[in-house]
């Protein structure tokens, strides 16, 4: 089973690489697609988890007053690195649609963390809380188009939210599986 998925991954990588080569001649630099699972705290009184699209990695909380992170997440609360939340220029547009069909990022219209209570991403808008399972189901068709902390563009969708196994009434960690396409050249082109 493992071998099979490795093989699949390998062939996907080959296709991906060849696709890259073909596009080299065009003036548009293709964006890169990644997916990652981010572990965040459930309790609303614990630290946020910071994330950088550029590095496709979690950023240490000691770097919270820097441009190193783009968004932060805790429970279902999002911060973007701007104004009230950080020194960056990060903003976001949450748009309904199919992720793959979003090929360019808008030039304007981004929402920022203006104040600590007027945040760019409103809680409760991008997931359904399920009373029956006591879980969060990210809404399908929610495309988060980011302007990053250092003025690059990215689009993201949340694929899954699962809990770490827990005892007692409340979970401790939520794992968010996300997929994003990052454009490193500063252009609004989000085509792969």
């Amino acid at each position: 089973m493992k071998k099979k998925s490795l093989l699949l991954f390998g062939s996907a990588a080959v296709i991906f690489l060849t696709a890259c080569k073909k596009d080299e001649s065009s003036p548009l630099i293709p964006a890169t697609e990644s997916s990652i699972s981010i572990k965040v705290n459930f309790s609303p009184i614990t630290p946020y988890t910071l994330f950088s699209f550029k590095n496709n990695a979690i950023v240490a909380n000691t770097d919270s007053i820097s441009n190193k992170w783009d968004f932060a997440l805790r429970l279902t609360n999002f911060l973007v690195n701007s104004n009230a939340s950080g020194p960056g220029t990060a903003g976001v547009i949450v748009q309904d649609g199919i992720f793959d069909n979003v090929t360019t990022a808008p030039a304007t219209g981004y929402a920022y963390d203006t104040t600590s209570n007027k945040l760019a991403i409103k809680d409760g808008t991008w997931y359904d809380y399920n009373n029956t399972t006591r879980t969060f189901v990210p809404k399908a068709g929610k495309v988060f188009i980011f302007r990053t902390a250092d003025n690059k563009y990215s689009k993201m969708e949340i694929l899954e939210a699962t809990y770490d196994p827990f005892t007692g009434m409340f979970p401790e960690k939520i794992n968010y599986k996300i997929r994003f396409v990052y454009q490193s050249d500063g252009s609004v082109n989000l085509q792969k």
Partner: protein
Amino acid sequence: MCKRRLTVILLFILSTLLTKAQVADTSLLKELDNVVITATRNEGKLGNIAIPTQLITTQMIKATGSLRLQDILQEQTGLTIVNSPLGISLAGFPNIFGAGIQMQGLDPAYTLILMDGEPLVGRNAGILKLGRVAVGNIKQIEIVKGPSSSLYGADAMAGVINIITEKPVKENAAVQLQYASNNTLSLAMNYSNRINKTGIQLFANRYSTSGYDLDKIMYGKTVDPFTDNSYALKITQYISSSAQFIVSARYFGERQTNNYLVTDQGVQQIINGTTREKDWGLNLQFIQQLKKSFKFTSRLYFNQYTNNSDEHLQKNNAPFDALRFLQQVIKPEIQIEKTGNNSKFISGIGFMAEAIDASRYDRKHNFRTLYVFSQEEWTIAKGYNLIAGARVDKRNDFDWRVSPKLALSGKISDKFFLSASVGLGYRTPDARQSYALFTNSSVGYSLLGAEVLKTALDKLKQEGQIEPSVNTSLYENNAALKAETSVGMNLGLRFTPHPNLLVNANIFRNDMKNLIDRYTLPFNKNNGQSIYSYHNVNRVYTQGFSADATWNLNKHFIVSGGYQFLIAKDKDVINGIKQNRYYKRDPVTFKTDTVRLKDYGGLLYRSRNSANIKVMYKHAATGLSGWFRVNYTGRFGYIEKNGSGILDDKNEYESGFLLCNLTLSKHFTKNLDLQTGIDNLFNYKQPFLMPNLAGRIFFVNLNMNFDKILNVKQRKA
């Protein structure tokens, strides 16, 4: 090939049975002569009613041997027991809201439940606990489908269930003793007598059970042990040959011992507690037959329901939680009935004063409703009837509401009876939706009723629980909740091809708007938790058909079957799907796509198909009888999994299930019957979605019945 052979065999069986049918001892057509009252508010024969009505007689109740109203109703075509989705938890927590009746695809909150024609109050999140009604003194249960607000006002959007208790006719004493699984013990006693102009009916029932536990891993039981005490007293007094006074009083009390586990500030704690429910009612009626054609009835009804719980930490007995709930209603009413040659006219005026108070509401509330209703029933031609009626309600905090109804029926031939009805129904927002003022102590979210939203938000701001910069004004001038409304249509056909075969079919459609739904405010409290309130949003429809057939095979067997097909959908969701506004995510590839209309399964907790088959066997010579009932509930949606927010994926359904119940009775002497049976024969359990199903239950009933005990001689009047 195999199919054809099966058809031939079936045809053969059918033909033999049909020839045997000639010898059945009683005609089913007699059933149609039973007198019902709920659909028109005056007495009429079941067979002549233009409004879909189902009747459960005391004989049927006794034949099941069941003491639970829920089980009896569940066996009726088109009635489904549903658990409150608010309380369902796949984590296994007991459902505190309980289960109620879904009728024509509408939630339990939309079916009015009456006791001797008067509404029972005290609902928890829209659900009236059916366990409050003892079964032992019920004469009949009438189920009227379709909006009935034209006679009963608010809440009768889906229909009405009227539980009618026995009236004293002659001297009779009965004792019923039941022992069943889960240490369930019930002792019921009935005494009735009629001496000259005075009748008396006494009923007492003590019912106790240890409850049951469907999930052994989870601490605590699914249903905690409880003891019920029910008493009823009815006195009928003829003042003259044309005037009668009826007093009925009833009391129900339940004491439940609670024991469960919570996580309080990160520490697991065992909680002990007691929940006490009390329901008592008083119903006074004065009936005067002023002329042969003119009847005057005055009524005064009172009902009070309380539900109080006190919970303590087991380790040090420190108070953990205390909940109070009180609802009262007092309702004077007068009604006139005028019978002409080809018409029946009824009209009435009444006033209803209600008080409701609960620890989770802002304060005690009083509502006053004044109402007037009128209805005329004409015989427009021989066998053809027309009913036109309307009711006007004015509640102090709501606009006038007019609820009309029109029904037409016709006996097309000896074998066909057609009926059609259309009516408006409505439901005023309940106190929780308007006045909830509740903050969850362990999580910290707040639930605020629509009417108290402004003051509650202002207060949260003042207390620093919401940032001053948050603009709450958009939610402070929200229009008050409007009543939910429905238009319902029913088209019925009765077919009696043979005195021993009775077929009923009904097509229905209900269009509802302004359904009240909970929503999340777009800003949070400073603790990061959400604020919820209620608003009118949904427009939904339910439609389908139901069919019932009863067949008196021969003097030993009666076979019956029923089926309901149901579709219940949200119109706004349908529009949204058409406009490609709904997206779904593939659980394996995580690819997003738009939802297709054909995948939309409609509202949760609705089974498209439900059916029942019942076989009754009687052997008069030996006094043996048996009744085997199979109830099928088809698959139903219960969850959202693929990110679409709606039911549109096969993984979002729970599969259908069968409940089989068997009762065997032996009639020993005219004073003694013994019954034994098994409910849920195949031990179907679904701990999370259907905690109301206890699993397999064995029971034994001992029924004793005596006439003429005191043997008081009656004077000739």
